[in-house]
């Protein structure tokens, strides 16, 4: 039995046992459901083995939404715990675990897949491609992310959650201070998901450089594609740093090396540096695609072309460059000395300049536009003032000497939520609502959507604005409670109320999906928003091959030109189309990765060795496999395209 003791939870509570039961029951229900409705084959053929970028996008989307709710529950628990002084809902240890998993889940397992969901679905369509450059690797990326997420999420019922913060600073994260396997989960699950992300990064760079429609010059790419390109470039340069940081962290924890330890020459600050050399670019990985989405949405719903396209492109390139030069602002107070602090202070503040340019461009796009306040547009317009608060407080934090006051207080927490929530969450909700009809063939209900928006926007401000004040008054972050005498009580209660407002907003979004599935019209045509770019020049739902004929593009807004100036996009005859075959390999290999990670978490060497070999065996199999894909015949294409309007239009 001793062997199994390691799987026990070091610090249990009734809630955790209840979750265990709930997880068990859900799994059983899923298995029974799939068997009863005979859906195993469907699941395998259509989803688990798919290499279609659109389906992979949808799977990313579903996972991201699930993780949003997991992270959201963590958030509510934290706000509930701190709502009143001396609360005992959670004890210190549980609070540590909850803020750690909240941070990791939201950044790595919610925001990242959400971004890749939209990139997967939209980018190939926007550039007129049939798929990404390496469809199988794309599936592998998704499944690696998914298995990493699963591995992370089982930590709280098997062996214990990580509890050293999402930044996992050493020596706290070392074996001496974090004795449970929690931090092993952190290291390995993020590693697995991170490898997936790196592969995606390579895949999208190649896709965007090599698979654009003929004549689509780089400076003719829609803005979302531009941001996707730059984001993936950051991924390719930043993620290897994380890979090494996690590798070294794993070595310290599993093999007793002394890289980040306090003894035998180890250096704890090295972790902080490596982490943020990845971590700061990471926040721009999150924000740039959001900028792309806003550019698309604002231009569509203002019925104007994007103001200052060239300066938009220039500023994202500059931002991406600077994002690698500011990491030290995360630890101004940890003793670098005045020279480095000053340099990093200046680079940090400099980043606000290109960001400001973008804000003005969006405002100028709206100026004199015929604005339609649809749900995506509401999120985009709401984003501008809220994000500006985030940016301005960022500049405040960027002043090294002033940061001694703000650092690690609730002020900082307010800052980054003021950037990430309007910057990422609003953008993803805007993008989701905007592209939803293309993905699923019906619109989300606008009325419920607007209610949800107001709950989210107001709830957000009520939750986080008070933190600026409690932070300035000295409330430290990550403290599980405070005494009445501090006077933090009322404002924290206000935050809790706001958090409930946010929760209602998200619940409304879920309800909206349910409502719209049942009641929305399916007869929406292929371009319900009267949009401007190529992804709307496809059928709804999009054909497996995307475009029957390769689009001919010579402007940023090809579809708009077609609609307003009658410039045709599709010319020439339909030819047979080559498509990749489905494959179970990415899924199987990722399952093996899951077992590999799990074995390492618990230092179970034999399964770890076996799975390592199995992973390489999968790659060897892939090397020898002969797979030339298949062709879709002209007749089949014609049958699918028969009653589609654009085609009909142009055959006139």
């Amino acid at each position, binding site marked *: 039995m001793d062997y199994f003791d390691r799987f026990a939870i070091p610090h249990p509570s009734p809630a955790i046992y209840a979750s265990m039961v709930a997880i068990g029951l859900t799994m059983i229900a899923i298995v029974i459901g799939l068997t009863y409705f005979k859906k195993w084959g469907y699941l395998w053929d259509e989803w688990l083995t798919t290499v279609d970028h659109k389906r992979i996008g949808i799977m990313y989307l579903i996972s991201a939404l699930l993780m949003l709710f997991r992270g959201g529950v963590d958030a509510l628990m934290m706000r509930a715990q701190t709502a009143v002084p001396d609360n005992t809902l959670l004890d210190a240890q549980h609070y540590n675990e909850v803020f750690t998993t909240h941070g990791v889940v939201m950044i790595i397992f919610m925001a990242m897949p959400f971004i890749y969901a939209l990139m997967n679905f939209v980018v190939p369509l926007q550039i007129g491609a049939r798929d990404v450059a390496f469809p199988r690797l794309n599936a592998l990326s998704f499944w690696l992310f998914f298995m990493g997420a699963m591995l992370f999420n089982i930590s709280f019922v098997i062996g214990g959650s990580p509890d050293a913060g999402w930044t996992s600073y050493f020596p706290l994260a070392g074996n001496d201070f974090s004795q449970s396997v929690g931090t092993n989960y952190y290291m390995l699950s993020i590693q697995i998901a991170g490898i997936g992300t790196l592969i995606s990064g*390579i895949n999208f760079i190649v896709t965007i450089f*090599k698979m654009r429609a003929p004549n689509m010059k780089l400076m003719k790419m829609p803005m979302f594609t531009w941001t996707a390109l730059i984001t993936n470039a950051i991924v390719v340069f930043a993620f290897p740093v994380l890979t*090494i940081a996690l590798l070294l962290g794993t070595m310290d924890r599993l093999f007793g090396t002394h890289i980040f330890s306090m003894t*035998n*020459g180890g250096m704890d600050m090295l972790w902080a540096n490596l982490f943020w050399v990845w971590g700061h670019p990471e926040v721009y990985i999150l924000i740039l695609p959001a900028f792309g989405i806003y550019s698309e949405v604002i231009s569509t719903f203002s019925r104007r072309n994007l103001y200052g396209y060239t300066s938009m492109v220039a500023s994202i390139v500059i931002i991406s460059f600077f994002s690698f030069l500011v990491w030290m602002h995360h630890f101004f107070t940890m003793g670098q000395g005045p020279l480095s602090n000053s340099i990093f202070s200046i680079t940090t503040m400099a980043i606000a300049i290109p960001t400001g340019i973008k804000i003005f461009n969006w405002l100028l796009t709206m100026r004199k536009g015929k604005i339609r306040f649809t749900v995506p547009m509401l999120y985009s317009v709401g984003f501008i003032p809220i994000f500006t608060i985030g940016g301005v407080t960022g500049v405040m934090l960027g002043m090294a000497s002033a940061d001694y006051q703000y650092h690690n207080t609730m002020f900082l927490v307010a800052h980054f939520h003021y950037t990430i929530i309007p910057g990422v969450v609003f953008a993803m909700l805007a993008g989701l609502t905007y592209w939803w009809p293309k993905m699923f063939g019906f619109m989300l209900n606008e009325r419920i959507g607007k209610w949800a928006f107001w709950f989210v926007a107001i709830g957000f401000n009520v939750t986080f604005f008070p933190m600026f004040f409690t932070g300035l008054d000295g409330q430290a972050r990550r403290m599980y409670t405070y005494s009445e005498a501090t006077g933090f009580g009322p404002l924290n209660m206000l935050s809790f109320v706001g958090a409930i407002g946010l929760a209602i907003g998200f619940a409304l979004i879920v309800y909206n999906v349910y409502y719209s599935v049942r009641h929305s019209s399916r007869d929406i045509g292929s371009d319900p928003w009267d949009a401007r770019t190529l992804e709307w020049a496809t059928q709804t739902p999009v054909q497996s091959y995307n475009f029957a004929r390769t689009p001919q593009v010579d402007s940023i807004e090809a579809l708009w030109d077609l609609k307003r100036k009658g410039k045709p996009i599709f010319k020439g005859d339909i030819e047979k189309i080559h498509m990749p075959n489905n494959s179970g390999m990415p899924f199987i290999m990722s399952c093996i990765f899951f077992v590999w990670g799990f074995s390492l978490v618990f230092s179970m060497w034999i399964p770890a060795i076996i799975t390592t070999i199995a992973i390489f065996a999968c790659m*060897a199999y892939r090397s020898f496999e002969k797979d030339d894909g298949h062709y879709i015949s002209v007749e089949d294409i014609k049958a699918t395209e028969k009653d589609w309007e654009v085609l009909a239009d142009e055959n006139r």
Partner: protein
Amino acid sequence: MKIDNSLPLEYATEQNKMNIFGFWVFIGAEVMLFATLFATYFTLENRIGNGPAGAEIFELTPVLIETLVLLTSSFMIGLGIHAMRIGRKNAMLTFFGITLLLGLTFLGVEIYEFMHYAHVGAGLQVSAFTGILLTTLGTHGAHVTVGLFWGLFIMMQVKKKGITPQTANKSFIFSLYWHFLDVVWIFIFSFIYLKGLM
């Protein structure tokens, strides 16, 4: 598959071009990976705790052998690709074979080197310096090991299918990988061993 005969076989199809470009991007990521390792190594180089310093444990002879062997192997794979371009399958396979044998030799010497470190009390857990030294060398060594298997599989495919756009593409990409490992080694040789021995 459209085949463009004006280009070398490894670039002949669209997919081939994308594979090669994608691999270059991958090498970009690998550069960052090793750059991070080197940066970490330089930070920890002198933090030896109670363990030995580099100058006390490095031995020039095995390192020189490793360097020589790896450089030669890089030259060999260059010849292999040349043979491939002029369509000489057997010559190509021979050069690839020699490359892999040299790689194997390199790995053997490296294993000896690791045993030597363990022997002189410079194991993984001794100090920050030994930890990062062995991790950096080990990461390179692991890449070489993967390369040996990968190269072997490619040789088997070339042997069976001949020089086709697919196999040529794979072989060419493998040669890029191998050259890259050589470049990394040159950095290891100069900035870890030579610098450490000085």
